[in-house]
């Protein structure tokens, strides 16, 4: 009790000092993206296969014109916990790509892609990409983890807590960005991009990609689907991770219970 009193007194002193110097918050430049409801959020979250497949379609027909996906291999698209295309689909898909290689005499050749190949680069390096596009379009393999925003104190603390855990800042930002071209007079103005002037002109418009499963072909739907796909591309082992986590947690909780009673029994004669 005495300790709590001391902590309380201490908090009062520091609180008073903090108020005396209340720092001007430099926020308010760009608004935070709105939160989407993702099937893969939370401890039991799983990817929506159909959504990942649609998202891949959007990537392939729209984004891939400029953006690479270098760290993802074709085979990943058929692995468990991802879009789970069939092996034959992946074989056919890979074969549509030309891969630079060498023959057995050491001569440079271009061959058909195989499932084990990664998505090929369009340019030899970033300078070559910048020469064509103005700026080098970033590779999208980990973009969903390479972007994010802070909800600021104290909300950022809640983002770590069980039941409230929020790890989807990056993917929410991507979806918001793709839907953020709200100025019809300026296709390079984006509501969520820092400074608002974005080099990537509005990439998505309604009915641009033909979905085959009856999903509405709206801009917002495309934005969400491709963002979900990019989250998977950045975190392809997420389902395995969360599944393992559940087993680990159950084990540790039981173990902790046993340890608690063991400790209690051992110490019973001391106090």
């Amino acid at each position, binding site marked *: 009790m*005495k*300790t709590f009193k*001391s*902590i309380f*007194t*201490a*908090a009062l*002193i*520091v609180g008073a*000092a*903090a108020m005396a*110097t*209340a*720092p*001007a918050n*430099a926020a308010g430049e760009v608004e935070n993206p709105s939160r989407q409801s993702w099937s893969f959020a939370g*401890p039991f979250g799983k990817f929506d296969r159909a959504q990942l497949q649609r998202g891949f379609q959007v990537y392939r027909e729209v984004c891939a014109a400029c953006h690479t996906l270098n*760290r*993802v291999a074709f085979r*990943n698209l058929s692995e468990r916990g991802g879009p789970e295309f069939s092996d034959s689909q992946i074989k056919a898909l890979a074969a549509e790509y030309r891969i630079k290689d060498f023959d057995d005499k050491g001569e440079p050749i271009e061959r058909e892609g195989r499932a084990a190949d990664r998505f090929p680069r369009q340019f030899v390096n970033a300078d070559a990409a910048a020469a064509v596009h103005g700026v080098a379009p*970033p590779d999208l*393999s*980990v973009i969903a*983890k*390479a*972007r*994010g925003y802070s909800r600021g*104190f104290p909300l950022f603390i809640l*983002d*770590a807590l*069980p039941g409230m*855990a929020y*790890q989807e*800042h*990056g993917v929410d930002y991507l979806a918001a960005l793709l839907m953020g071209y709200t100025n019809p007079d300026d296709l390079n103005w984006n509501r969520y991009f*820092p400074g608002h002037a974005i080099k990537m002109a509005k990439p998505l418009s309604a009915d641009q990609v033909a979905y085959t499963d009856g999903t509405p072909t709206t801009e917002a739907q495309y934005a969400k689907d491709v963002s979900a796909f990019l989250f998977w591309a*950045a975190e*392809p*082992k997420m389902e*395995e*991770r*969360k599944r*393992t*986590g559940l087993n*680990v*947690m159950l084990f*540790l*909780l039981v*173990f*902790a219970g046993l*340890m*608690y009673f*063991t*400790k209690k029994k*051992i*110490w019973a004669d*001391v*106090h």
Partner: protein
Amino acid sequence: MSGHSTYVPQSAIGRWFESRLPILGLMHGSFVSYPTPRNLNYMWTFGAMLSFMLVAQIVTGIALAMHYTPHVDFAFASVEHIMRDVNWGWFMRYAHANGASMFFIAVYMHMFRGLYYGSYKAPREVLWILGVIIFLLMMATAFMGYVLPWGQMSFWGATVITNLFSAIPLVGEAITTWLWGGFSVDNPTLNRFFSLHYLLPFMLVGIVILHVWALHVAGQNNPAGVEVKNVQRDTVPFTPYATAKDGFALVVFLIFFAWFIFYVPNYLGHADNYIDANPLVTPAHIVPEWYFLPFYAILRAIPSKLGGVIAMFGSIAVLAFLPWLDTSKVKSASFRPVYKVFFWVFVLVAIGLGYLGAMPAEGGYVIAARILTAYYFGFFLLIMPLLGMFETPKAVPATIADAVLAKHGNVVMNPAE
């Protein structure tokens, strides 16, 4: 405390071996019969967690090093290779990256416990100073480890921190160039950081062994802050008592650790570190890992570069002088009503500095950082020496056994002696 071992192995082979190399006796004396004060609370379980974390970091680190490539062109790609292609690679990497944070959470709890209960006071000065050296080595190891993935924060964090050495008069520039192995953070820097990141943990193991040795010579401090007077009445054997208690606390700690690994693995990291290092693009805000933030705030609170560097290193160095800065005769803050308040203010100041370290160094943030920095040093250099002279401590129990009895209701149960 432990004295000469009286351990006699039960088996004939054990006795044969013991008379030639008494290592079983050493283990028995250190982890079985070693007397621990019977009034230790759960704040005394962080030492076991730290030992566990050191081993866990070395094990996951060795596995990661098998798949990692320390080269500016391949480092980032090799980390992604670990995350995507290596069996359980995602687990190894997330356990190692979050493990560093867990290590620091445990060490900060351990240090604050020492600060609260006066664990640095005689006869534990050397034990405490070894702890400060461990903390410094941990910081160096963690800093170099964060550079290895070669993301934007790796590169720019390394640039900012190594540049601090250029503040040293006359030789600063030469030292910085020598550290870099060139004229900026580049491939030679990454290579030597990898080499040192692998070396330092083993040096840590060495100092930890000295730390535990010093602990077993001086004996553990305890919440009452009085020394063991009667081994029979004041202590219990390490096994099974401390092992069971440490074991339970460790499993609870593992639940906390596992939550981060499996459910919020990137919470403690920074999104910019998933962008390939680019020497031509500076991130909007360069922030170190959370466990460095209080020291980063102190660095930036001082208007001059050299002054900031001195203050930052001084904020850690001052800890080594605590045994002589604290003039109080009483160890435990439980019996120091005034110190207790100053201590909790210090804890909040440290957290506040951590918050300010993550904020941009401008306007009110800088003013606040300066006030908190002043308190940080004032706490050690003014409050601790003066308080020992002016504070009237409460009555301290005569023995540990008395403290235990008082706490459990039987206030004046003087055992017949």
